[in-house]
């Protein structure tokens, strides 16, 4: 591999890893703060992508689709928390697994009823549809750089919210000790609802951003879900920064695995995970 290819593969890795971070950050927050295992999280990614497809065909622009899609995803997340997940906090993990497994089936079938089972493409917004010439034969699509940029902005924003705002303080407190938060008179149910809705919106946004490059197809959420689990395991439950580091590790492992070890490409990320488990069973960033 020459240096130019190496650089480009690095860009590919970053872009893939950052996108995964959007999905995994919501998952790890919901795990860490609410103690809920949510198998349906990958479905939110799928729902986001289909929202992008439907709204972009209706409005003619992916921008509009994303602008409309984010509030829809937030409302949807808040509704789900109120209707279903709020009943799960005191249940054991097994029942959470079961309910969210059922939800996957429901979401997929509703998707099939409402939008059908076809594979769809979503057009890249015209202003980002160009490519940058990187080597004599290869150019790099601008849109992929845009995705990476948006993800970096969101990661910084998430850092700011968690470290600097009152909501963030409550989230951090809730992550450590929920009884203490309740003792302080903070409405824990409200925090749960906000965090859950945020997680849904982040996953859906990832799906919307990815829709032009990955296409929109049935069951697209399940692969993302399992990779997100791996990221959470590597990064440590509840750690957003762990999720960021782990997502980038997975992005690099997967991209370079495809090129250097094509026979093992599907397995590389799981082997990395097994290694981390041996070294630190609670994830790299788990404190204590």
């Amino acid at each position, binding site marked *: 591999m020459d240096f130019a290819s190496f650089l480009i593969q690095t860009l590919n890795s970053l872009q893939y890893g950052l996108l995964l971070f959007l999905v995994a950050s919501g998952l790890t927050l919901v795990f860490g703060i609410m103690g809920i295992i949510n198998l349906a999280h990958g479905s939110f990614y799928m729902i986001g992508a289909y929202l992008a497809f439907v709204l972009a065909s209706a409005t003619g622009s992916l921008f509009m689709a994303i602008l409309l899609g984010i509030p829809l995803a937030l409302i949807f997340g808040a509704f789900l928390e109120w209707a279903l997940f709020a009943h799960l906090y005191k249940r054991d993990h097994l029942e959470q697994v079961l309910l969210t497994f059922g939800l996957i089936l429901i979401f997929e079938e509703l998707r099939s009823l409402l939008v059908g089972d076809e594979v769809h493409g979503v057009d890249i917004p015209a202003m980002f549809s160009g490519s940058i010439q990187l080597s004599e034969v290869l150019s790099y699509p601008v849109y992929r750089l845009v995705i990476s940029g948006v993800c970096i902005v969101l990661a910084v924003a998430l850092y700011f919210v968690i470290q600097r705002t009152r909501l963030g303080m409550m989230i951090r407190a809730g992550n450590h000790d929920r009884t203490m938060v309740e003792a302080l008179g903070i409405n824990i149910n409200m925090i749960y609802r906000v965090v859950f809705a945020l997680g849904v919106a982040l996953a859906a946004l990832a799906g919307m951003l990815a829709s032009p490059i990955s296409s929109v197809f049935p069951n697209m959420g399940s692969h993302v879900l399992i990779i997100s689990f791996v990221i959470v395991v590597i990064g440590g439950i509840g750690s957003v920064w762990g999720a960021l580091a782990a997502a980038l590790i997975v992005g690099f492992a997967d991209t370079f695995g495809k090129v250097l070890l*094509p026979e093992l490409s599907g397995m590389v990320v799981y082997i990395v995970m097994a290694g981390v488990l041996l070294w630190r069973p609670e994830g790299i960033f788990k404190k204590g």
Partner: protein
Amino acid sequence: MTTTFKHIRNIALATAFAAAGLTSAQAADKVKVGFMLPYTGTYASLGNAITNGFKQYVAENGGKLGGREIEYYTVDDESDPAKATENANKLVKRDKVDLLVGTVHSGVALAMAKVARENKTLLIVPNAGADEITGPLCAPNVFRSSFSAWQPSYAMGEVMAKKGIKKVVTVTWKYSFGLQSVEGFKEAFSKAGGKVEKDMTLPFPNVEFQPFLTEIASIKPDAVFVFFAGAGAAKFVKDYAAAGLNKTIPLYGPGFLTDGNLDAMGDAGKGVQTTLHYADSLDNPKDKSFRLAYVKAYKQQPDVYAVQGYDAAQLYQAGLAAAGGDASKQDVVIKGMEAAKIDSPRGAFTLSKAHNPVQDIYLREVQGGQNKVISTAVKSLADPARGCKL
């Protein structure tokens, strides 16, 4: 005494099952045709096109095959190999069909071929290209009205070598259809002195091609041979153009790359050359009348899959007619099918000893939103049927 008893028992059993909704009571006098095709999932449109094509021929033939009325049984195979055996058994053991028709996905078709062999049910495969079906797993009662993965790819190998291309990279999904296509291509291409620099694969139906495009750019081959189908194919052609590779490294592949996808590809598809046993601008009267009738009946343009469904019905017609409409005389039906010369919209074809079409493969180019015929790449190409003992 005993016969009366048997009779009563049969009535009792039949009533019990009919009441339970287990069997359909009538239909004793109709020929039972079971479609096991994808009606949901990625390949749903292919399943529908095959069904439409089959039914169109039956309609043209006065609603009958071999003078007998047809009763259809349908199972959605979801293109899921894990459920394939069970689904095939529903038609074979539960509904006891005379003819099984299916399917698109090669893995599912292999499972169907196995069920058909074990139960001696007549099977016509209207699409799936897995070489094994008319190779090592061939059987007297297993037929194919479409193609083997080897056929269009082998033809492409010859075409590319003739163009003076020396160094090639291949990309495909890692499943048997893709891998066998690449094998067929390499066989002809290497024989003519070409060299394959690298084979790249990704899991089906993954469509994140970016790392592979980067790799292609660093190898700089003379051309790229790809096998993809459906939406994944459209995505690949678009990504290939977005990466700027189409300007310097031409793209070739079996026709599934561009069939039914031209709208989705837009300008990115322009000039891509492919090989297949069918094309948009064939100059034969059969194709013209077929297309007219299809558009009239289904309000959409037919594609290669509809042709394959149509020919599956023609094939069975030939067999049933030979047996005077008696589907139970299976060996006579098979003889009739083997001897048939099918007047297909793709051009007339006969069957090889292994029951695969011996057909012309066309070289096509994407021009003005159509797969236009440039030339006949190979005339009357027969699959080598390696491992078949028929």
